């Protein structure tokens, strides 16, 4: 008896220690208790006292139940007097929780309405979810130097200290956008435009994840918000709007451009890319992909991630260098993008070699009857190693 009780106590202590140590993790980029912007702070300021009050009440209730169990357990004593109802006590026990909930409700409603504000927006970004990646398009906003729309994916780039409004929608099923450090969740629903405010206090990268189950690779549908200083954001905007620079003739990258035109452009758009006859290469994801879209790769190497932010474009050391850079250096390091020395070539080659093998997707050509022959995800293109070499060289030029 004593032995089993000792074992139970040890197990309880171990579980408590594990939970305590788990809360001390330093590398927890999706920690909801570490707000990095005013919107997330509003939520945090609400949930901290609510959590404290709820915790205290929970402890009191648990202690009372424990005491009652211990104090009044059957020891052979006579059954106490049985009474029906105690109005004063019942009213008290109803009014107190009602008051607590009313007070919590007042503050909650205030936060809900504050988080729903759109009239103070400084920058608008359209966000479209699809299986299993996010597309970002920046409508023309001359005050930010955006004179032509910018299309990107994987990483949402925004200026620091700015009230950014995401206009979210979806192309296929319901997704949910969530960057815990910057705000709560908001569903992206097909046919509807929902809004979500984001604002970051300091430059840096803030990780997030789709939080509405959306199919096979839901767990791999990630996102990162990159906050840059206003000057760095202006540089990023200028870089995104820069004209396409074709690779030099006779280079491996030029051969990669041909491979891209033969294979990838069926779904992936690169703005400014032209075919051999001089006509613009227009991707046709609407004819090949179930959602009707595939990531725009125009400035791929200005991003740090690919394949729905599941994989890093940077090697671990280079990525750590960017993630851990202090505020003053972060912008320059991020804007440096990806070069040959920092490219995570292993993951990129694996992706190009056989994408469905490294990320679960509905991309088996034999099983597309339900989607009219269209893919949900990137199929295995059957590229040769030589073609992969050329493509990697070409993709490195998309900066």
């Amino acid at each position, binding site marked *: 008896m004593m032995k089993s009780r000792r074992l139970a106590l040890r197990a309880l202590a171990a579980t408590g220690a594990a939970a305590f140590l788990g809360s001390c993790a330093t590398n927890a980029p999706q920690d909801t208790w570490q707000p990095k912007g005013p919107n997330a702070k509003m939520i945090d300021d609400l949930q901290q006292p609510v959590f404290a009050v709820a915790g205290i009440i929970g402890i009191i209730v648990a202690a009372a139940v424990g005491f009652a169990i211990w104090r009044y357990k059957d020891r052979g004593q006579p059954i106490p007097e049985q009474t029906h109802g105690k109005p004063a006590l019942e009213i008290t026990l109803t009014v107190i929780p009602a008051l607590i909930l009313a007070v919590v409700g007042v503050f909650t409603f205030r936060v809900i309405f504050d988080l729903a504000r*759109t009239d103070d927006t400084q920058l*608008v970004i*359209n966000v479209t979810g699809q299986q299993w990646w996010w597309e970002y398009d920046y409508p*023309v906003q001359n005050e930010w130097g955006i004179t032509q729309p910018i299309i990107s994916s994987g990483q949402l780039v925004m200026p620091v200290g700015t009230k950014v409004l995401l206009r979210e929608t979806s192309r296929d099923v319901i997704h949910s956008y969530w960057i815990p450090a910057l705000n709560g969740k908001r569903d992206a629903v097909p046919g509807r435009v*929902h809004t979500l405010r984001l604002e970051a206090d300091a430059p840096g990268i803030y990780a997030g994840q789709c939080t509405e189950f959306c199919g096979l690779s839901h767990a791999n549908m990630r996102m990162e918000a990159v906050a840059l200083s206003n000057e760095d954001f202006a540089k990023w905007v200028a870089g995104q709007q820069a004209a396409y620079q074709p690779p030099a003739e006779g280079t491996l990258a030029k051969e990669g451009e041909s491979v891209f035109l033969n294979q990838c452009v069926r779904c992936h758009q690169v703005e400014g890319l032209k075919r051999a006859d001089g006509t*613009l290469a*227009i991707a046709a994801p609407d*004819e090949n992909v179930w959602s009707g879209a595939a990531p725009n790769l125009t400035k791929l190497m200005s991003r740090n991630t690919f394949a729905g932010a599941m994989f890093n474009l940077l090697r671990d050391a280079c990525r750590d260098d960017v993630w851990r850079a202090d505020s003053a250096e972060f912008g320059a390091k991020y804007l440096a993008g990806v070069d040959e020395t920092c490219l995570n070539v292993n993951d990129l080659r694996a992706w190009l070699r056989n994408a469905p093998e490294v990320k679960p997707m509905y991309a088996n050509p034999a099983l597309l009857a339900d989607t009219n022959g269209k893919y949900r995800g990137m199929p295995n293109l059957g590229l040769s190693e030589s073609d992969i070499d050329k493509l990697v060289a070409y993709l490195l030029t998309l900066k």
Partner: protein
Amino acid sequence: MFKVGSKLFLGLSGFASFNLVAYIIFVERLAIGGVALSMVLAALVGLTAIVMLINEGDSESQPRDNALTGASLWPLMTVVGLMLLVLGLVVAQIYFVLGIVVVLAALAEWLVQAWSESASDDPAHNESARQRLLHPIEFPVIATLGLGVVIFSFSRVMLAISKSAGAVVFMVVASLVLLAGSWFALRPALKGALVSAICVVGAVGIVAGGIAGAGVGLRTDLAEAAEEGHYLHRECGVEKSKYFDKKAMKTLSLRSNVTAIIELRNGRLSAVMVGFGEPQQRVTASRANPVTFIFRNFDEAERRMVASLGSAMAAGAAAPETTEGDSHAEKNETCTQLIPQGAEQALTVKYDKPSVAQDAPLTLTVPGVAGQAIEVFVP
């Protein structure tokens, strides 16, 4: 050990197992259908076990009196249902669904009949027990089906004859129904057979009229409208369209979460979008994704909004999609109905190709309002 009930459930379990295996092999392993068939199989195995465990409710084996059992159509109907199920797996889903309905109905009738026939030694009591159990289900179902046939037949008559004749026929039929109903109500002593006969004659008359009407087909104006697609055909000009603009909707239930609200005010067109402080002249629309615009007309004249769908739409294999299955893609435009001052309508458009693939900018315009256009940019 194995009696009638356990044999039935064992057979059904075997049939469900076969279906499950066939589904997994020939259709898809991880589909919801496999889960559903597994659940059916589990339920049937459970029922088999219960039936065998309780020895089919008999405390001791009783010899069956064959004189108490009558002929039954339900085994035959069950087989017909099973054939429809199998046919449906190969041909079309509707047969599969019909097969499920027929199998379930026939099995229910069969099981209740089999149970009632062994309820007692009195055939009259057994029949009464069957009726008590099934009539509350049978009568509403048969009445629903009968009414459905009568209503469908009557609709064929109304679609075949002219509008004016239709009004007369409707009044005459309605008056006859009212008169007959009043007569039945005032004369409760009327014989049931007479009432039944009058109802049957009326129903047969309507069904016969319906068959005749279906034979004649739609009246001329409806046939022409259907043939020329008048009700689907969107005429997007300044003038009022005879068919498309008929009974234009003037208000919406959908008011929020749209891509943009396009307002026509004092002859000027502007786009109001959440997040943008000022009205815009340019809207970004997500590619290959249905986007919804609301058009609000504040001008005195009746106006409509027209969305150009671009040249690449016509060249592309996929036809543009709109809210109401528009078949007017050949014009590369779609539009709202003509709406008066203060009214609003929604228009859902899907742009499959980007703006760079177009010969001319994609726009939202209002016929009759010159020099005003909202540019739609599709990345």
